[in-house]
């Protein structure tokens, strides 16, 4: 296993700058997830690491060796593609063995590794099938198996789950995580799904338009988004974002309420300054559903409509013309028009500079 280091990465497609200067360190054995909206450069970055795109500028170090000019095959990496990229004309067995075969490895070694991977992934019964005769999840596992037999130092995954249906996606997610832990592998994983990113990553890298918006552990990114973009991108439903104003005392004024702010958490500007306030739906707690936050502000509003998810409901309600969404645990049926009371958890609010959109939180 090896660490991966990106220094000053830039990628040019013609005149279009797709990657605008990225530095990144992925530790040995770390599960690093690149997440971001479509077109932000996740795949490009991964492909540069894989050697499928030239590195226009910057240095790539894998396991301490600069590999800019090393061809893919010698970088000690293996890649799992979104579409799996299985060789459609080969059986599962041959898919697993192809790389070793052309490398001229001896049969015994090929078989050993192949059996190992097949066993670990439960591919035994399918070894003689073609990819087209496999289900999505099985294909997925073959793709991973093909990567495994290479015994790479770094695994690269490009949205490997997005072609699976919801159930299978959840299940495979778990498998990948387990496998990584078992192998102790360094993994770089690309996704645009923030749930995937949160659940899998040791380290999340949120990309925005060719740049890194934030790097950190999942909870860190979720709880301390560095800017409005990350705040809005991570978490579903998206954080409630409202204009607010700094009040006297550590207090934020919004929706006609005064929400107390914990001392020392934010670098608060002068009172009267406009700021942007972010509140996650689970931090607007409907009265009687879940623990009532101790510090905070009470608010009530007319329900516009609700989405019943079973174990919880999302309540969309109106406060002075602003629509807020709250999460109701152990839900009860709620009718549109009904007025409900909520309590906003003052200890969990987010404040951003309205101009620069960066957080006001002290690091």
């Amino acid at each position, binding site marked *: 296993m090896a660490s991966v280091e990106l220094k000053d990465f830039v990628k040019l497609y013609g005149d279009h700058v797709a990657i605008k200067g990225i*530095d990144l360190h992925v530790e040995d054995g770390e599960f690093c997830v690149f997440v971001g909206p479509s077109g932000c450069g996740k795949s490009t970055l991964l492909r540069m690491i894989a050697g499928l795109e030239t*590195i*226009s500028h910057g240095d790539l170090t894998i396991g301490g060796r600069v590999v800019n000019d090393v061809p893919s095959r010698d970088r000690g990496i293996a890649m799992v593609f979104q579409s799996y990229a299985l060789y459609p004309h080969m059986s599962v067995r041959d898919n697993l063995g192809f790389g070793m075969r052309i490398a001229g490895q001896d049969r015994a070694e090929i078989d050993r590794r192949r059996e190992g991977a097949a066993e670990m992934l439960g591919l035994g019964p399918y070894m003689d099938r073609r990819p087209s005769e496999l289900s999505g999840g099985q294909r997925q596992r073959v793709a991973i198996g093909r990567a495994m037999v290479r015994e790479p130092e770094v695994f690269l995954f490009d949205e490997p789950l997005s072609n699976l249906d919801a159930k299978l996606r959840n299940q495979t997610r778990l498998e990948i995580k387990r496998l990584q832990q078992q192998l102790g592998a360094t993994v770089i994983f690309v996704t645009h799904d923030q749930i995937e990113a949160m659940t899998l990553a040791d380290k999340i890298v949120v990309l925005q338009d060719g*740049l890194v918006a934030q*790097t950190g552990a999942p909870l860190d990114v979720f709880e301390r988004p560095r800017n409005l973009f990350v705040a809005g991108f991570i978490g579903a439903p998206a954080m409630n974002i409202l204009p607010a104003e700094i009040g006297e005392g550590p207090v934020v004024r919004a929706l006609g309420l005064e929400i107390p702010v914990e001392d020392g958490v934010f670098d608060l500007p002068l009172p009267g300054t406009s700021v942007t306030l972010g509140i996650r739906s689970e931090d607007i707690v409907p009265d009687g559903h879940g623990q009532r936050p101790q510090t905070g502000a009470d608010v009530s509003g007319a329900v516009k409509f609700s989405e019943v998810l079973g174990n919880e409901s999302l309540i969309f309600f109106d406060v002075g013309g602003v629509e807020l969404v709250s999460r109701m645990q152990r839900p009860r049926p709620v009718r549109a028009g009904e007025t409900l009371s909520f309590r906003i958890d003052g200890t969990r609010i987010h404040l951003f500079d309205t101009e620069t959109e960066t957080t006001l939180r002290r690091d």
Partner: protein
Amino acid sequence: MSAPLNPPISQAIRAEARKREIAARRRSGRVALLFIAPALGLVALFLLFPVVFNLGLSFTRWQRFSGLDEFGGLMNYQRLFMVPYFSDVVINTAMWVIGAITLPLAFGLGLALLLRGVPGEGLFKSLFFLPRVLAPAAVGTIWFYVYAPDGVINSLAGAAVGQDIDYGWLFESHTITPAIIMTFVWQTLGINMVLLLLGMAAIPRDPIEAAHVDGASSWQIFRHIVWPLLLPTVFVVTILNVIAGFTAFDLIWVMANGYPAQRSLSLAVYMYYETFSNSRWAFGAAIAVMLSALVILVSWALTVMQSRVEERIR
């Protein structure tokens, strides 16, 4: 941990990046050219160079033993219009092109609609397609006897009307070209039908079902949904037919055997006739150029139309 947002990318970095990219592209371009080279070489030598050479020839006076080195200007092109039976050539060519466009398409479409979903569709398709794999020379040979005075057509017609018929379909100036065109239709009908069937099969079922729910009758569905969506295929088929019609050679050459050739000549055969029977090399080259111009013009126009309709339904 992470870079500041929006760091400037300096011109120097840009320039260096571009250089690296170009170098990489060169490298892979060279490999690509290696793969392309054999095909390109053969094509250049045997197809492209001859085209240029032919164009050059058409401006010389070369015929029979001499004149290869004499510049003739537009002489050969003018000459074409002075050929006494030029009008026959034009009319025959027009008949070929129009016949080749309309008949196989119309019959092919009719058959395609008829055969869709009929039991044994596959067998029908194969049998109607079969003549297509035969050589035009063989087909012409067989049809020569089919059209002969004591041939199949006359026998059948005679049996139908109850008296002997010995009409010489290929020996009468006003039936020879239509007769050969019908043979062409016989041979190409199948491929037209199969292409149209493939085209129809490629039309998604959803819009058709949606039209059902929307209240359209079968005819309305054909008229408003199937036909417009089939148009690109129709254009492709038409382009193929036009080229085939313009350049049809073997059938005419074989079937017009017994008949005074010139009256059945189309431009394509006329070119061959002037070149190899009359040894007017440069003139033949000029006819080939004119023919090419016509073919390219017409198929280009059709291609433009095709991409228009395709655009519309993309």
